[in-house]
């Protein structure tokens, strides 16, 4: 790789600094290189790889996009992909030791399994119905939480026992929330009734004769408004590390070099001359600790870099939206944003 290519495609890490960080692929930066954006070229160079998928987590690579786009995805995932959460809590009775507002806050953070696409925002329905305030079946899910703690029948009078053995309903869990369908919801959500994603989230604890009687209203919202509406637990990206060995690292140094990296990054093999030599096998696993640059013997033999347009995304879903649907949802939000802006610009152009 020539020096120019290195600067163009890589972020370079040295022991005391990181350089060549920002992307310079705009027209006019390099003589003889036309960097004008072109959809056909983008279609050819852009790649997606899905490398891991579990129930709540997805890891995928977006190769060949600009950092501003990757960062837009991350920001949109965290703050602007809508999801449902409890917003209003009507407290009919609360004799537990937990204060009303603390209880309401805890309830708000419970992830709700309901497809946000099936609902509209409250302000949308308000606009449609001519600003008549009040929830409708198109924008609100209602849950009831009515729990009273009582002494367990026939329980021994022994203080050393667990509260769960002495009393009924000593702990209130999210699974005890009961969906109460409104309007046409019962028919519409026959196959997938809204419920908390996890049934074992502890909400509060009660003792005999304490009770809570609540009505919970879930609405659609976005993470910008409140973090409880965010559909992701984490959404982050990193650049793919790339370790370039410029001069062969031989003998004992090879083993030392291998130990500078996490397991599986560097391998020691026997080369043609029967000597031990180090080579890079899986730079993806590298944490880029830059340990190898602390040793004088490796200083001129290795270049630590990151590929500037290779983004490794790690997105963990809260559970309401399956992880593989998060990126398409984020893209949808972004396209919608662009379309709104385009429309308002077209309007202005027409007026002039």
């Amino acid at each position, binding site marked *: *790789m020539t020096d120019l290519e290195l600067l163009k495609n890589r972020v370079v890490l040295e022991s005391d600094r990181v350089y060549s960080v920002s*992307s310079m*692929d*705009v*027209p*006019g930066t390099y003589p003889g290189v036309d*960097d*004008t*954006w072109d*959809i056909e070229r*983008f*279609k050819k160079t*852009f*790649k*997606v*790889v*899905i*490398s*891991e*998928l*579990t129930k709540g987590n997805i890891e*995928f690579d*977006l190769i060949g*996009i*600009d950092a*501003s*786009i990757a*960062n*837009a995805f991350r*920001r*949109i995932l965290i*703050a*602007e992909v809508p999801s449902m959460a409890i917003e209003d809590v009507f407290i009919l009775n609360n004799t537990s030791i937990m204060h009303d507002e603390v209880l309401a806050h805890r309830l708000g953070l419970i992830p709700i399994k309901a497809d946000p696409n099936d609902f509209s925002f409250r*302000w949308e329905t308000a606009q449609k119905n001519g600003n008549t305030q009040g929830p409708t079946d198109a924008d609100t899910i209602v849950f009831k939480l009515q729990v009273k703690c009582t002494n367990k029948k026939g329980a021994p009078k022994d203080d050393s026992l667990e509260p769960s053995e002495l009393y009924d309903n000593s702990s209130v869990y999210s699974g005890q929330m009961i969906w109460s369908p409104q309007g046409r919801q019962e028919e519409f959500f026959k196959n997938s009734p809204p419920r908390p994603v996890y049934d074992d989230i502890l909400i509060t604890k009660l003792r005999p004769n304490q009770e809570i009687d609540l009505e919970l209203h879930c609405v659609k919202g*976005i993470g*910008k*408004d*409140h973090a409880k509406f965010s559909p992701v637990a984490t959404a982050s990206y990193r650049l793919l590390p*790339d370790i370039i060995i410029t001069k062969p690292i031989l003998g004992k140094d090879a083993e030392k070099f291998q130990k500078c990296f996490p397991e599986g990054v560097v391998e020691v093999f026997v080369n043609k001359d029967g000597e031990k030599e180090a080579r890079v096998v899986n730079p*993806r696993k590298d944490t880029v600790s830059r340990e190898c640059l602390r040793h004088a013997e490796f200083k001129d033999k290795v270049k630590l870099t990151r*590929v500037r347009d290779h983004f490794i995304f790690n997105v963990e879903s809260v559970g309401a939206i399956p992880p*593989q649907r998060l*990126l*398409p949802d984020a*893209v*949808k939000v*972004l*396209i919608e*944003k*662009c*379309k*709104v*802006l*385009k429309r*308002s*610009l*077209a309007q*202005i*152009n027409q007026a002039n």
Partner: protein
Amino acid sequence: MNAPDRFELFVLGEGQKKLTITPDTKLPNAATFTIQKEDHTVGNMLRMQLLKNKKVLFAGYKVPHPLEHCIILKIQTTPDTTPEAMLMEAFDELIKEFSTIRNKFEVIFFFFFFFFFFFFSINIFFFYIFNLE
């Protein structure tokens, strides 16, 4: 008490326009755009897309104040076009780019899912493509 409403972050105020244009009086082919209720997400993306256009001489954005939910975008172009036209082009390009990304992701996911269920019942399945050099 006097805290601003939370929805002010993303719902347009009454009579507020999403986008306004102020032509620059001192520079030729330059304009300042004010976009309401947007932040660095859109600002940085637009700036980058505009810079990738040969006809754009200058593109920059700022968020004037953390409590004002708007961005200010400045564009200067070559004499054969206008900032408005360039911004329009940037929107079109971005929409195309996003559609490509979504389509590719969904196609790849479809294949991934296929492999995932029919060939491996283990939870995690890795595959890498590395052709960096």
